[in-house]
């Protein structure tokens, strides 16, 4: 394969697409699949055949289109319109409409100026939802593998790293470590085997962007990994995928085979001396394996428990070799940067947080789904414009960002901008990009308890502060929720938060108290109401073990006058 051949394949596929009058794209994202997208696809196929359109209309299952809460989604390219909540009954109407260009079928049609899409600027998700993830040609037809070809053909590794460094790209998995710096350390490491690991062990409850990318645009991951491999001098990459993501695994496996078949992976890529192989490693459901040292141990076939850092994986990673561990989104950003240049990328977003961020927007908003906005967009824009406001015209109480490692940001801070530094300034973090919106039906104590429940059961069990401390924190919060807590329990809780944060072995343990810290900070009154008044403003807590004595000072019911 040469770069010319690559262009040829793209051209050929674009020509083939040109023979269709229209495309009916059915969203194949997780939410839409669960809502019956597979059946829709079959229905559209047969409806097109019925109307003799099989050569005029291309029916294709794409990756996630973003507006997951309104699925199944269907896009028709002729007039670039989109239908939401499509049922099998709508299929005939839509197909008939387009077979005769009637444009009468207005049911479930999404308005063209819908704010959900209007306020986004997709880079990572640019082609997702438009291309067929099972077709490598479709990816190539959308400039796929061009960045790899150019890197290998025209750039030396140093200049690729320089480009990434200049772009200001920071790790999208939560840490926010400068990607170029990490690559540079690995490149400078001792010669010999080096590895690229793509962390696709998406474990944050409420995040699903990795899954969407794995099964919506798998080649963008392979291309990014290969560029990284070229830049640091690695010949082997691993994608560590969550075991639960069955379809993503299938899709990724298929993509690797295709790329190998086309010699876009393997030996002598683009006729150069660069060899790069990618293997898939399937995780087995341990949240902590999102932590890089734990992830590496898991790839090595061990119990995925973290180890103390330093040494960092970039110094001593897989089998003790220098290893790049990057999150899926970080890797997908690589090819666009190489293609469009560092200057373009650093022009998007804020000074400290360049580029865009993919957000999984969920909770009590009207529009839920996958969103990509420039860094620096305010939370208010995300919640009110893109999210379309709170369900049932309710009032936003808080947003939770960063999953179990992040914090709850109260509504009064909605004007804070979504970037690494601003989020941590209000006591939260970006994490992998989960954003859960809460309204007044959400009890913050209950939420804190929920997160601690998660952390205690996902602790790897290696270090004591995390293994036992999270259990005790959960107990204390549960006591508050049940009405059997005392004032001193809040103090103990606070002490535990600080202690676990400071003493835990890995990042997950250290960040596990974050949701509780933020809730105690911003919603202390609500917590105290639980403790002192046994009342829950959200009406969630039942105070099953409420001990009236814990509210009022104990009074003697007995006459002891004969004393």
């Amino acid at each position: 394969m040469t770069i010319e051949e690559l262009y040829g394949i793209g051209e050929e596929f674009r020509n083939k697409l040109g023979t269709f009058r229209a495309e009916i794209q059915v969203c194949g994202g997780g939410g839409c699949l669960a809502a019956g997208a597979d059946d829709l696809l079959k229905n559209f196929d047969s409806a097109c055949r019925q109307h003799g359109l099989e050569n005029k209309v291309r029916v294709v299952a794409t990756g996630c289109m973003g507006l997951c809460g309104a699925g199944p989604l269907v896009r028709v390219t002729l007039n670039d319109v989109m239908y939401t909540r499509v049922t099998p009954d709508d299929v005939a109407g839509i197909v008939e409409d387009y077979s005769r260009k009637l444009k009468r079928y207005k049911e479930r049609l999404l308005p063209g100026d819908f704010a959900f899409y209007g306020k986004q600027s997709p880079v990572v998700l640019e082609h997702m939802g438009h291309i067929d993830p099972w077709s490598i040609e479709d990816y190539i037809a959308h400039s796929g593998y061009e960045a790899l070809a150019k890197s290998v053909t025209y750039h030396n590794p140093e200049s690729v790293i320089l480009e990434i460094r200049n772009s200001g790209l920071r790790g999208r998995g939560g840490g926010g470590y400068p990607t170029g710096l990490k690559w540079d350390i690995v490149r400078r490491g001792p010669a010999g085997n080096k590895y690229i690991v793509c962390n696709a062990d998406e474990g944050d409850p409420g995040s699903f962007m990795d899954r969407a990318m794995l099964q919506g645009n798998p080649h963008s991951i392979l291309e990014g990994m290969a560029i990284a491999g070229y830049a640091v001098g690695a010949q082997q990459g691993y994608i560590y995928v969550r075991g639960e993501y069955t379809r993503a695994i299938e899709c990724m496996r298929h993509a690797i085979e295709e790329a190998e078949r086309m010699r876009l992976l393997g030996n002598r890529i683009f006729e150069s001396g660069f060899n790069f192989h990618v293997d898939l490693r399937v995780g087995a459901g341990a949240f902590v394996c999102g932590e890089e040292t734990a992830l590496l141990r898991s790839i090595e076939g061990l119990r995925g428990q973290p180890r103390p850092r330093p040494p960092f994986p970039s110094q001593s990673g897989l089998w003790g070799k220098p290893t790049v561990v990057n999150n899926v989104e970080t890797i997908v950003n690589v090819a666009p940067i190489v293609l469009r240049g560092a200057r373009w990328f650093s022009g998007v977003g804020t000074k400290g947080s360049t580029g865009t961020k993919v957000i999984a927007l969920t909770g009590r908003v009207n529009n839920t789904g996958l969103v990509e906005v420039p860094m620096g967009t305010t939370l208010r824009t995300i919640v009110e414009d893109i999210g379309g406001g709170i369900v049932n015209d309710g009032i936003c109480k808080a947003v939770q960002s960063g999953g179990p490692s992040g914090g709850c940001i109260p509504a009064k801070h909605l004007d804070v901008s979504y970037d690494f530094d601003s989020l941590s300034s209000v006591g939260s973090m970006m994490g992998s990009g989960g954003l859960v919106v809460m309204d007044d039906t959400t009890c913050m104590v209950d939420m804190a308890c929920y997160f601690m429940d998660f952390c205690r059961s996902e602790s790897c069990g290696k270090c004591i502060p995390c293994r036992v401390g999270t259990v005790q924190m959960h107990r204390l919060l549960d006591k508050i929720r049940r009405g059997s807590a005392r004032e001193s329990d809040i103090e103990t809780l606070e002490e535990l938060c600080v202690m676990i944060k400071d003493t835990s072995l890995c990042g997950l343990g250290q960040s596990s108290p974050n949701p509780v810290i933020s809730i105690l900070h911003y919603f202390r009154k609500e917590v105290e109401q639980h403790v002192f008044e046994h009342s829950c403003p959200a009406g969630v807590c039942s105070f099953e073990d409420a001990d009236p004595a814990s509210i009022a000072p104990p009074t003697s019911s007995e006459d002891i006058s004969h004393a």
Partner: protein
Amino acid sequence: MTESRREIVIDPVTRVEGHARISIMFNEHGRVEDARLHVAEFRGFEAICTGRLIWEMPRITSRICGVCPVSHAVTSAKAGDEILAVTIPRTAEQLRRILVLGQWIQSHAMSFFHLSSPDLLLGFDQPAESRDFFTVMRDNEEFARRGIRLRKYGQEVISRLAGKRIHADFVIPGGVRSALSEQNRDILLDGLPEAHSTIRMALDFMKAWLESPHDSFDIMGSFPSLSIGMINEHEELEYYDGTLRITDAAGNIVADRIDPRTYRDFIAEENESWSYMRFPYYQPLGPTRGMYRVGPLARLNVCARTGTPRADAELTEYRQRTAPQGTAQNSLYYHYARLIEILFALERIEQLLTDPETLRSDTLRSRAFSNRPQGVAATEAPRGTLFHNFSAGSDGVVNRTDLLIATAQNNLAMNRGIRQIATHLLDGPGQELPESLLNMIEAGIRSYDPCFSCATHALGRMPLRVDYRDQNGALLRSFARKT
């Protein structure tokens, strides 16, 4: 309001491990109907033992009580010997025997001097505020000081053998863990003369007390019951390894030469919802006639003689004083019996310490693994016969535990004694609660030296609460006596 059934509850607010409460129930005529000693003592030890190793039993069961840990430890170790199916080295047995006797001395001395002497010296009617060991110390300094030193000698015996006064890991199934040094033996021998003179003094005091008239003497738990105690093959007082004898109030032998291992064949138990404590009785005679006492009074009732010269002489005199015919049946005689047992213990300890076998250090422990599915053992604890019964698997893990403790065995008798006192003092409508009733009930229970005594009576003052309740159980009125 009609005069109705009422219930008086005397509730000493105490540390949990020794929490006892007394309630006296009146019928609608205002007469005492029943009296109950509620023991809210948590009996979790059977559950704690289960799942643990037989070698750990002495350590765990000794935690049942801070006053008589040695008795529990030794009994558990003996039950462990049974499970290992070993005969322990003679030295180990002698050391265990000395240990048990040391326990008798310290526990009996504490019961007599620290806890009961205020009652005896100052009288049951003395106001509670001043009826304590501190008053005794002030007014009878020499008596009190020597009492304290006698108890200390008992503790010394234990700590010279085991290295620690309480809860030492000394006895273990198979034997003991360390030898007695010559030096420690000599220290113990040196302490004997003073101990003897103290017990002489106490006996003289006791006899003088008995000779002076006491109004309420005959209502302080004076009623017939069976006696159960251990004797050796010569029908002498036994404390470590012997057979059981049961006698009735007249002194007739009801049963004899009973292997303690068969205790479940002749002791039955009733559980009452109002107490954690069980109510054991001699099964062939049923719960009413089968009521029995254990401990010093019972032990001196069942044996033919003690087996040591000075104690035997005292026993003869004791029998003439307490019950020229039959056996002693007044609970107050427990105090007297206790003193004779101390004397016996001192004499036996001397015999054991002077036996060269006791000092051997080469064979102290028979080592074996679990060889028998069950081990039952009994010893005479200061308060009476103590039974430990363990079942264990071949891995040595205990899978069933049954402990029968002396205080529980005296339970029926203690309740009977309280009823006697209450009936005597409270019968008649509308009786208020005189302070002396509380004092006498306290003293009545105390004669048995029940396990919870250390927790409730350490300073001789019981923080009391008395509830009056109507027949529906609603609280009418409450008396409190502050500490």
